[in-house]
């Protein structure tokens, strides 16, 4: 798949993942792969800088948690993050709808 299609929506995808539960980095990559049925495979080099950037912007916050007996740095979406997610979802819906119209596609 053309990776440029993914890059513009990375923030939205991560926020959506964290909307339902807190996760650590490796978990996010696996979950994203699973939910997209192996279509999306976010690179580590993209993931952590993005997570840190989102934390700096106040959309996420991190804390130390435990998974399978190991300490991990978990990320949690904030209230600002939820608002940003809704905004991005609206933008994406508008974009996707426009593409569909141009391509004269229909969802079966």
């Amino acid at each position: 798949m053309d990776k440029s299609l993914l890059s513009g929506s990375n923030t939205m995808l991560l926020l959506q993942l964290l909307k339902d539960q807190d996760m650590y980095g490796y978990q996010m990559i696996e979950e994203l792969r699973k939910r997209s049925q192996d279509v999306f495979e976010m690179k580590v080099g993209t993931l952590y800088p993005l997570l840190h950037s989102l934390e700096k912007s106040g959309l996420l916050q991190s804390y130390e948690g435990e998974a399978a007996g190991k300490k991990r740095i978990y990320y949690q979406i904030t209230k600002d993050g939820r608002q940003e997610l809704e905004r991005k979802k609206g933008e994406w819906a508008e974009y996707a709808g426009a593409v569909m119209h141009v391509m004269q596609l229909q969802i079966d």
Partner: protein
Amino acid sequence: MGRMNKENDKDNVLRRDGNITEETDRKLQYLSRLTEQLQYRPVRQKIYREYEDHIDDETEYRISTGMTKEEAVEAAVEQMGDPVETGKALDQIHRPEKVLLPWLGVLFVLGLGMALVYYIQRDMQGQLWSLVSAAYPGRIHINRIDLFLCIIIFTAVTYFSYTKYQKFSVWAGLVLMITPVWYFMHRTGMGENICQILDDAVPRILGGEKGWIARRYYLLYVPIFGLMISYWKGKPHQLGKSLLAMALPLVLSFDPAVTDDELGSWGNFTFWTIALYLVFVFVMAVQLEIISLPKRRTTWIAGITFVLAKGIYMLYDFAVVCHAQWSVYYHHTGWNIMFTFFSEKRRQEYSTLWKTLLGEDSGVPLLLFHVQIMQGIKWIGTSDVLTQKLAQDQASADQVYLYITYGDLNTLMAYVGILPVVLVLGALTAFTVWLVRRAWRQSNRTGRLLGTSIGFVILFRIFYATAQAFSLTPGNHYLGLIPVFGGIGTEDYSGIAETLALYGMLISIYRYRNVS
């Protein structure tokens, strides 16, 4: 980095294998190259750990798919990408902000204040100068050593990460809360020997009024209280409670203090400070479940009760002053100054009252002098009444000295005119708001709270001192120090140091946002 390798190598799976050295080395090489790109060293450990955990998880997965350990580690590190490129991306995110411009901005304002001191002194001629300088020989000058110390303090606070002293906030708060008790003992003469040393410590080094910590810097309680609440709550604080914590010291600051000669301004200040202290201890005891009461409701009730009590007291104070019976305690405090500014009739009443109560009218010329400088005239050489009184009265010379050396805003306005001073204060306000907005842009709630409360303290003091200079509010010399301008004279470099420390903390909060 060697110490970090030992402490953070948690790869227990690989430890059991004989080929451990090569695989671990490969991982460590990657992590070293990654973290080397981070210029701000304190963030390196966290990032190192996060990436190491990721490599370990990926390695475990690949081993579970049938790879050998060596292959698994190699593949895991390979899929991490270029460590240099990733490290540089992280460095951009985690680097402290550049703050040279705000740092220079504050020093520029300080320089402006110093220039004013110099020109005021240079222009002082004739009898006024000889009187004041005779009373305080060699004291009216710019103390270069003290000034240099203040700049050192400012720079150190600016470039020291505020997160490092966050963990001491509770202890700092407890110590600060003791200061009202200490101040009470000082003012009443109890335990004088003990209090004296602590009381005079800072003024001895940098000059300024005695009782430096306890007395007029209770507005510093605002950021300290905010920091304590943020830290002690352990999770993102509730803004409402934090604002309440800020409001309490603010309420305390309105101290007209001219209702009764026995209480006096210091008596009132002491009373309300002790009351605030007790209320805060009570609220903390409830929050920590030492006293079993509903936490939220108790905090709100205690805060609102205190504010109401002080409000009622202020109304009572105002009513008493309106009757002009006891309003001569301290000539430039109280609601009186408002009345005398706006009313000639009131000035006459005040003069008569002063003569009746004290048998002389020594306060009146100074009051008239106050009114005159409100009109923006140059006071030097034009205040004939004042000059005459100075020739007779050492106490009056003391008061003029105070005006000059404590950076009284009235003196500044009289010297350069009202408009320039108002413009500079406006610029200072805008600059402070700019700093606070930048400090606000971070996800660290403690930083946001602390930045907001410090900015609040500074802005409130600018506002209140300005309003006081225009006689729009009761006078209160505990708040009289305009940031940086305050103490621009010869005695009160402790005031300058305090203001610079506040600005330094604000800049530090902006500089180290999200760098912890």
